[in-house]
C-alpha cells in the first residue's frame, strides 16, 4: 500500500472520487440551504429571475431553462421543473450507494465461491466453474437488463428477504450478481495456482484441515488480487447502473439517478443539452477518477495483472 502512496496521479484522482462522494452525501444540505428545493419538487409552472428578467422555469414548448449559476437552479431545470443540481447530488447518492452495495455483493460472492472452487478442485470446482461460465457467458448489460426487467414489476421474494420494486437494493442486487463471475474466475485461477505451491503442501503435511488452509494460507495471499478488483468493480457498477437506469431497468422514477437524468436529456435533444451534459460529465469524472485510482492500485500491487477495464 505504500507503493500506491507514491503514485501521485492515482492518489489525486482517488481524492477526486472521495470529494465527489462527499459532495453527494451532502445532498440534503445543498437542497435545503442553497437551492431551497427538494429533488422531487416540481416547479414546472413557476418563473425565476435570470439576469433581471422573468423567465419560465419550463417554457410552454417544454424546454426547461439552462444553468443560472445562482443558488436556485444552479445547473438548470429538467422537463418537470426540478432543480438539476439537487437531483444531481441526490442521484449521485443513489448511484454511488448502489455501486457500493453491488461491489460488496460481488466481492463476497466471488471470494467465497472462487476460493472454494480453486482449492477444492474436483467435483465442487466443476460445478462452480460451470456456474461461473454460465453467468459470465451472458453479456453484462443484457443480463442486467433481463434481471432488472424481471424484477422490476414484482420485486424479489426469496423467503429470507424481500426486495420491493422501488427499492434501491434491487438494482444493487442485480449488478452484484452480474459481475461476480468476472472476479470469481480470476480468484479461482489464483487460488488454483496457490494450491500448487509448496507452502500449501507444507500445511497439508502438518495436518491442517482444508478450512484452515483456505483461510490461513490461501486467502491472505489472495488479498492483493482482491484489492485490485474492488475499484474496478466500483467503476463498472456505476456505469452499469447508469446504463440500466437509462433503459428503465434500474432505478425507477421518481428516484433520481444519473442514468435516468441523461435519458430525460436525450429525449429533449436538441434543446436543453445541459440535461445530458451535467449528469454525463459528472458520471465520466466519477468513473474516470475511480479508474485512474484502480490503475494505480494495480500497478502498485500486481503490475503483471492483465485486467479488462470494462465488462
Amino acid at each position, binding site marked *: 500500500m505504500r507503493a500506491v502512496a507514491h503514485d501521485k496521479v492515482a492518489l489525486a484522482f482517488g481524492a477526486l472520487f472521495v470529494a465527489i462522494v462527499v459532495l453527494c452525501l451532502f445532498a440534503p444540505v445543498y437542497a435545503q440551504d442553497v437551492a431551497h428545493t427538494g429533488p422531487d419538487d416540481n416547479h414546472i409552472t413557476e418563473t425565476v429571475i435570470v439576469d433581471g428578467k422573468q423567465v419560465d422555469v419550463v417554457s410552454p414548448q417544454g424546454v426547461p431553462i439552462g444553468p443560472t449559476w445562482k443558488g436556485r437552479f444552479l445547473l438548470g431545470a429538467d422537463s418537470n421543473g426540478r432543480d438539476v443540481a439537487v437531483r444531481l447530488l441526490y442521484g449521485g447518492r443513489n448511484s454511488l450507494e448502489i455501486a457500493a452495495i453491488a461491489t460488496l455483493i460481488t466481492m463476497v460472492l466471488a471470494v467465497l465461491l472462487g476460493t472454494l472452487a480453486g482449492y477444492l478442485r474436483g467435483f465442487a470446482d466443476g460445478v462452480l466453474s460451470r456456474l461461473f461460465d454460465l453467468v459470465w*457467458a451472458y453479456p453484462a448489460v443484457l443480463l442486467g437488463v433481463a434481471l432488472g426487467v424481471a424484477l422490476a414489476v414484482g420485486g*424479489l421474494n426469496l*423467503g429470507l428477504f424481500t426486495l420491493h420494486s422501488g427499492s434501491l437494493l434491487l438494482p444493487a442486487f442485480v449488478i452484484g450478481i452480474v459481475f461476480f463471475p468476472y472476479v470469481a474466475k480470476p480468484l479461482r485461477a489464483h487460488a488454483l495456482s496457490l494450491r500448487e505451491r509448496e507452502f500449501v503442501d507444507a500445511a497439508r503435511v502438518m495436518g491442517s484441515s482444508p478450512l484452515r488452509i483456505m483461510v490461513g494460507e490461501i486467502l491472505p495471499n489472495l488479498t492483493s488480487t482482491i484489492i485490485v478488483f474492488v475499484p474496478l468493480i466500483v467503476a463498472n457498477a456505476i456505469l452499469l447502473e447508469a446504463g440500466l437506469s*437509462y*433503459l428503465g431497468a434500474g432505478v425507477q422514477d421518481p428516484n433520481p439517478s444519473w442514468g435516468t437524468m441523461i435519458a430525460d436529456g436525450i429525449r429533449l435533444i436538441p434543446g436543453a443539452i445541459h440535461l445530458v451534459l451535467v449528469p454525463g460529465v459528472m458520471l465520466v469524472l466519477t468513473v474516470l477518477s475511480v479508474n485512474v485510482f484502480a490503475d494505480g492500485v494495480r500497478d502498485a500491487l500486481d503490475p*503483471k495483472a*492483465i485486467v479488462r477495464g470494462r465488462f
Partner: protein
Amino acid sequence: MAVFLARRLAALVAVLFAITVLTFLIFQAIPNGDPALRMAGRLATPQQVQDIRVQWGFDKPIYVQYAKTMEKVLDGSVISYTQQINVEQEIVRDLPPTISLALGAGVIWLVLGVLLGLLSAMHAGRLLDRVLTVFALTGISMPVFFLGAIMLYWLGYKWGLLPLGGYVPLTSDPWGWFTHMLMPWIALSIVSIGVYSRVLRANVLDVMSEDYVRTARAKGLSERRVLIHHVLRNSLMGIVTLWGLDFAWVIGGGAILVESVFNLGGVGQYAAQSIGRLDVPPVMVITMLVACAVVVLSTLVDLAYALLDPRVRLS
C-alpha cells in the same frame, strides 16, 4: 484436434441448453408474483392474463413451462402482448442496422486498438504511452449512450456535419449508410478501443519479454522482423480472444444502449423500447438469442485459438 473440436462442440450444446434454461428461469420462475401478469404487461385485461397462463403453461409444472416456452421460441410464435406483434419477425426485420453497427465498429476498433496497443507497448513508459493510456482510460470511463448523445448534438445538430440519426440500408444508398453509421460506430469504438488497446498493450509487453524474442534478436533478425514475426504473431491469440470478448459486449450491451440515441431501429433499439415498456416477451427472446449468439461466437474464437497455437492443434 478432432477430439478438441468434438469436445468444444459438445460443450457448446450444453451451454446453449443451460442458457435457455437460465433465461427461462429468470423470466418465468422468479419468486415474486405472477409470471403470467409479467408476461402480459401493464395493459392486459384479466382475461388476457388467464389466456396467457394457459398458453404458456403457468398452471403446469415447471418443466412443462420450459418445454412450452422453448416450443414457442423455436417455432417463432412468441407474441408481444403489449404491442400485438410477432417478436421474432420483428427481430429479423431489425437485424440489418445492428449487424452493420457491430461489424463496422468491430473493424474500426480492431485496427485502431491493435495499432494503439502496439504503439503503447513499444514505447512503454514513455510519453506516447502515457498519453495513449489517458485516452484509453477516458474511453473506458464513458457511458456509451452519453458519448452518442454528445456526438449527435454537436456533430449533428450544432455543426450539421453528419445526419441526425436514422438508418439507411447499405443496398439502397451506400454513402448514406456510411454517414448514418459513422457516429454510432465512433461512439462504440471509443469505448472499445479504450478497453482493447490497454489489454493488448499488457499482452504485447508480456510477449516482448519472452525468451524467444530474445533469441530472435540474438539471431541477428531485423527489429521489424522480430516485431512482426515473433511479437505480433504470438500476440495474435490474445488479439483474437479479446476482440471476441469486446464483440460480445457490443452485441450484448453496446448496441442496446446506443441504437436508441441514433434511432437506428435495430434489435438493440427494439430491446431498449421493450425494456422501457416492461414488455417481457421480446426481452426474453432477445436475451436468449443474443446470449446464444455470444456463446457460439466465443466457441468460434476458441477454435481460432486452436488454429493459431500448434501446441493446442496437435495435442
